[in-house]
């Protein structure tokens, strides 16, 4: 791999400096074929308002296989390459690592020389991940200071434990399982870290067998999906503490630690509460050496007539908000919360993380609401994956969750879209009615050229 003479220009020592980065001109988005017959794709979307092809999908890269179910993805290298204890600033941010959540393959996709038309240059096969790390169903990718970290939902048989494995950031070889001592951790989903505190946080969804055929009512009502956070010693690779949110808090998903490495707190979304179908956001934080967690946002379920509800919700007579993704702006000031069930994205001022204040909201789609965007007609799906630009001014949204779960909550099918919202400095949130892109396949995570609010981590405040 090439070595640069100066640091990659997209690396920033601190989130503050990164927020001054130029606006993105391209976005990468994964899409998947819900029938599993056509190859999934990485779509390049033109995000440059000065361009003639603005808002258009300018390139579609089909994967070499079918049935991958592309989901989340990440970069080979990012601003953490500037960290002082393992500096390698002359590596390029160049390759996207794109896992198939169902197939367990990971594609290495080169975004150079033509960033609009990336190419698959390597495929990491499930057998290599299974034999070298003992895992399958790779999910979250984070470029770490000393390698590429990948979380996996389960072991090679689709059972617990899920966990984290590491890829070499030059050769992409699977280096092995990350955990030396996993303590009581069995379930896995997302992970991220506080580099300034040598601490990794991981969250819990369910094993592949618990999620791949759809949400399982029996497991759910028994509180069997994940309801804990795990705190790890990052350099020593050891479990330190489990934080239980309570068994009724089902599916603890996306983790958004403060970007500022001197701050020891972060936000996590919970999909649903068995008590009242509400969704919530919690803050974990360090207090006198120990980590604690507390609920700071609760979003109630919305009553609805049974005939408007899909089978799975008829007995409850309500639409659960289903918080499935959240995102934190680089200045740690604004939190965006997707309620995929009710079809709403909410914006909170979290400058005091313990007292979030809702400042804006936009309704799009929703199980019952089907809220439209100016002239779009009824929208299906709801705000799901949310990505925030480095300057914090633009928010991108897509509307599919996970194939088998899409069918349960949106049985009429999902017509996928990508929407842009404008985030005002006053806390407002407005959908850009000129930015509405529809896709044949289902859309999932979006990442922005050069980095965004969920792609990079920093060692300096």
């Amino acid at each position, binding site marked *: 791999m090439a*070595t*640069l*003479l*100066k*640091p990659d*220009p997209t*690396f*920033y*020592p*601190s989130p503050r*400096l990164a927020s001054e980065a130029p606006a993105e001109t391209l976005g990468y988005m994964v899409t998947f074929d819900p029938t599993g017959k056509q190859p999934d794709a990485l779509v390049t979307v033109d995000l440059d308002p000065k361009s003639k092809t603005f808002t258009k999908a300018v390139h579609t890269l089909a994967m070499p296989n079918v049935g991958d179910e592309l989901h989340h993805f990440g970069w080979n290298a990012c601003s953490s390459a*500037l*960290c*002082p*204890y*393992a*500096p*390698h*600033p*002359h*590596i390029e941010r160049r390759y996207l690592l794109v896992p198939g959540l169902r197939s367990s393959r990971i594609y290495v996709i080169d975004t150079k020389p033509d960033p609009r038309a990336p190419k698959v240059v390597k495929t990491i096969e499930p057998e290599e991940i299974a034999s070298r790390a003992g895992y399958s169903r790779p999910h979250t990718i984070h470029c770490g200071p*000393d390698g590429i970290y990948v979380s996996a939902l389960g072991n090679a048989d689709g059972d617990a434990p899920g966990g984290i494995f590491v890829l070499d*950031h*030059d050769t992409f070889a699977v280096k092995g399982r990350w955990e030396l001592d996993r303590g009581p951790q069995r379930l896995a989903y997302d992970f991220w870290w506080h*580099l*300034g*505190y*040598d601490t990794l946080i991981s969250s819990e969804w369910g094993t592949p067998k618990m999620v791949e055929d759809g949400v399982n009512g029996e497991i759910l009502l028994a509180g069997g999906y994940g309801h804990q956070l795990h705190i790890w010693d*990052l*350099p*020593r690779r050891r479990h330190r503490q489990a934080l239980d949110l309570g068994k009724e808090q089902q599916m603890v998903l996306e983790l958004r630690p403060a970007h500022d*490495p*001197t701050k020891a707190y972060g936000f996590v979304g919970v999909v649903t509460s068995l008590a009242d179908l509400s969704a919530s956001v919690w803050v974990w934080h360090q207090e006198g050496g120990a980590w604690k967690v507390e609920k700071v946002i609760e979003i109630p379920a919305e009553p609805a007539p049974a005939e408007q509800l899909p089978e799975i919700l008829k007995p409850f007579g309500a639409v659960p908000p289903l918080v499935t993704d959240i995102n934190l702006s680089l200045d740690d000031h604004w939190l965006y919360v997707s309620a995929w069930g009710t079809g709403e994205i909410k914006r909170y001022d979290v400058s005091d993380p313990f007292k979030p204040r809702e400042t804006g909201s936009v309704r799009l789609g929703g199980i019952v609401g089907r809220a439209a965007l100016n002239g779009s007609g009824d929208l299906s799906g709801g705000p799901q994956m949310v990505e925030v630009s480095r300057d914090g001014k633009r928010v991108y949204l897509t509307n599919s969750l996970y194939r088998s779960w899409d069918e349960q909550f949106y049985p009429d099918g999902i017509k996928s879209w990508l929407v842009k919202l404008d985030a005002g400095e006053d806390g407002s949130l407005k959908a850009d009615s000129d930015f509405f892109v529809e896709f044949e396949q289902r859309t999932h995570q979006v990442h922005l050229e050069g980095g965004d609010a969920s792609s990079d981590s920093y*060692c*300096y*405040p």
Partner: protein
Amino acid sequence: MTQALWPWAAFALLGAYHGINPGMGWLFAVARGLQQQTRRAVLTSLLPIAAGHEASIVAAVLAVAFTEHVVPPHTVRLLAALTLVGFGVYTLARPRRHPRGSGMRVGAAGLAWWSFLMASAHGAGLMLAPVLLGMPVADQYSDLRSLTGTAFAAAGIHVVTMLAVMALVSVLVYEKLGLGFLRRSWFNLDLAWSGALLLSGTVTLVTA
């Protein structure tokens, strides 16, 4: 006297070079200062970093001195040349090797150990070999003790210069410059260093 001065100047210059390289320590000191929000943390990080670096240099220099004592000068030069070239090729082929298991919250001992590993992986001490070999050590000193003395003095002058440069750069960056300039000015010193290893290895080989 002038004849004996140039090796010491070379040790000092190499020390200054390591002092200015962000990957060798000053950046870590600044990061700790920023994390703990006190200049004290910058300053107290410098000594352990210098100590680890010194240990690595001493080990390399002692190895050269001892080898020089027991094998003929020609063979020592050949060995040193091959090691330098080998290290140059290795650092070119795997440019991003770094010690694992470190983090932002290491204590003084952890910092020294990190610096020792970083300097060793970098081949920092190796570079002193050709200079040492250029000094007529074997002719002047017949016993191991004086050899060791020279080795320590060489490593000492290297590390004192390094420490002085590190202190200057890290305080300047912490207090005045900030880290933004890193984006433009962090030249690929590792690439230059690989080149220097190859060059000095070749020169040593040719003059062996």
